[in-house]
């Protein structure tokens, strides 16, 4: 089942922050990971990730630094790794709670559960 673009667009920021929660990652790695975990259902356009990352960097939610790629993957090449900042973790917690409340409310309305 394909998700609507509005839903996908609205979820990019918390997903990116959540991906970076445990370790620094580079852009392509994030795209591959999302598509693998969602079995391609989110269908991220690869390019759309970068404006999001740059916006988050500009807001101080993530930081970036260039580092050598692992020698067994891409010898001699550099990649730009993104890490979540302290401010980014706070934002992620806020967004997670917001999503949880929102999904409960929508579920109650759409599926007939209690609010």
């Amino acid at each position, binding site marked *: 089942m394909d998700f609507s673009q509005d839903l996908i667009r609205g979820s990019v920021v918390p997903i990116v922050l959540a991906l970076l929660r445990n370790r620094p990652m580079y852009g392509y790695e994030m795209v591959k990971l999302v598509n693998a975990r969602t079995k391609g259902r989110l269908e991220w*356009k690869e390019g759309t990730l970068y404006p999001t990352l740059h916006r988050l960097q500009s807001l101080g939610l993530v930081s970036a630094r260039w580092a050598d790629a692992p020698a067994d993957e891409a010898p001699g090449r550099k990649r730009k790794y993104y890490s979540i900042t302290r401010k980014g973790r706070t934002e992620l917690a806020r967004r997670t709670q917001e999503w949880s409340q929102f999904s409960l409310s929508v579920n109650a309305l759409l599926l007939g559960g209690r609010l």
Partner: protein
Amino acid sequence: MNGWEELVAQLTDRLRVDPELRMDVAQELRAHLEDSAAEFRQAGQSDEEASASAARALGDPQELSEQLWQANRRRIRIRGVCRWAAQVALLPAAILVIAALVLGARGGYSLGLDPHGRFSWPSDLSEEQRFVLQGDPAASTPLERARSITDRWPDNPVYYGNYVAQALASGDFYDSQRHIRPQRLGEMMALLDKGERIDPKNAVYNFQKASWLIQASSTISEDTSRPWTQTAPQCQGCARHYWKIEIRDREQFQRGLAELGRGLPKPEWTCHTVDMMQARLDLLPQPRRLNDWLRRVVLQVSVLLPSTSDSRVLARSLSAYAIQLAEAGRAAEAVDMARSAAQMDAKVGGRAQSLIEVLTAEFAYLEVLAHAEQVHKQLGQAEEARKARSAFEEELAFYDGLSKGPRPSQRDVPHAGMFWMALAPGLPGYQIDFEPVRSAEQFVAAEVALFALLWCLVINALLLGLLSLLSLIRRRGADRSMLLFVGWRRLGSICLLAIVLPLAGYAFYAHVLTAADRAYGLNYTAGKTLLEYAVLIGGIFFLLVRLSCSAIRRRAEEIGLAVPPRLRLRDRRWIVALGALIALAAVVYLAGWRLGPFKPPREGPHATHGIGSLPGLALAGLVVLYLLICEVREYAGPLFRKPFAAFRRTLYRSLVPIFAASVIVVGAACGWGLAWGERSAMRRVKGMADINIVNEVERSNYRLLRDRLAARHEVMMSQGR
């Protein structure tokens, strides 16, 4: 080429206002496309198909280009402001920091002389205070300036005494043979009469009038037929003769004696020149920096020394006249005259404020005692003559004993410091606490070293800035140099490794290991201190250049700029070996200095003139030369090959703000710290640590001579009463 360059250029076209950001984003997109294409290739696609698939997977180029622009707009604006500040404001701010440090080091007193050759004074003095310090600014001679002060405050005895002393020193009243000009006698008498009215308890005017009247009415000369001997070791064999007098105008001579008689009972004697200097020093604010204090010293050195020749001639005339009276058989008058001469000298010496007054009075007093013996011999008073002789020899022995006291310049040369080594009065028994001024000198030396570092950085920044400016004027478009931001993490590393660690290391070396030998003065440790600062300052400068170049190089690599290959250790083995050799020599010298073998001799000309420091000076020169060579290698070499021209221009441009920021950080932190240290040392410069040229009698063994003369005077006064 994978055919992506056109796509990447299209995606990043709207970011072109910030070339560094554009290259950074482009490099990131290239890395993404390469990863993506590699995966498509693994899935079995050909190179061309994989490239096309990777480009397709990225999304719509127009939409992505717009999104990238929207996402980076804010960053571009902020970076633009920061770049403008780094290019335009940092270097002037660095120069301002240096200017502020230089102005601060000048202290509260302004430097130099004004156009008339006079001191320029602190600006916060009132008009009255300035007038006391320099007199009427319109006056052209010292005498006119002194007169303008007493004209403004006519009842002040100090100002008037200073004017009279200035008039006597001006030479207007004497001919070329130092004889009084008779036609000026009346004028001088009027001057002295006025002084007596202003300062009635002061005998100086009476004695001066007596001297002038007696000199104008008589002539004294050595009586070569009457030699007299001294028993003091240093004067054995000295040919001395009694003085004889020829009186030309008895009436005027008697007027002179009458003035003497009026002066003898007066309680005070001072010509006020020292009082005037003290009053001027009291007007000046407390010195905060060494420079302020040196200005005070220079002011003290310029104190008007009193004219002592007139009182010496008066003593000789009175002694000669006493012998003449004894020869004429006028016993009571002769004895009275000899006593008057002794009393006058004892009063002058006992009230003296300057060394020259004490010594002149003492020598005159000795001559008077010698003449007194002759007076008693002439009168056939053998017992009185023996007593006079005994008093003479006792006085001479006392003076010799004082003169043999230890002198400060011989006592502790290595601890004295530059100033005290050069200017410590060589007076016996003079007490000095060297520490505060020595410490202030050491802080000033550190400030000079800091200025050297700051100027090196600023000059480098200016030269590189100029090269970059010329390059920007000559080139347009993509070929222009970029101002790279190496990132806060790298800037922090540069600051830590190139500035904080070397300074902390030196602080540990100097204060924990006490290896900088601050207990010695710079006069003794000049070579060693210079070597230490050359290593420290040169090391900081060298590390700043190396680490900054390295950081810019890494950043350039990240954004895809062509950079020259790194030099391997094998390529730079000679320069490394030379550096190791110089470092070893420096370590051996510093260790040898500390442990003894290279320590200069503590006494003798090598200690006092710093020749013992020559190896240290030579090594310091070598260190500076070596670091200069390293710096040239850093800026030049492979950088001048054509493929790396863009990187070279970018490197030069990007170094400018790093150097300027370093000047601001180092200058503000170290400059403030050193200034605080210097001010703290200057607060301790008081009492025995301060110089007091206007009252050096008090600090030396000669105060005992002054007190002895004062006691003699008291005895004579009580006998007279």
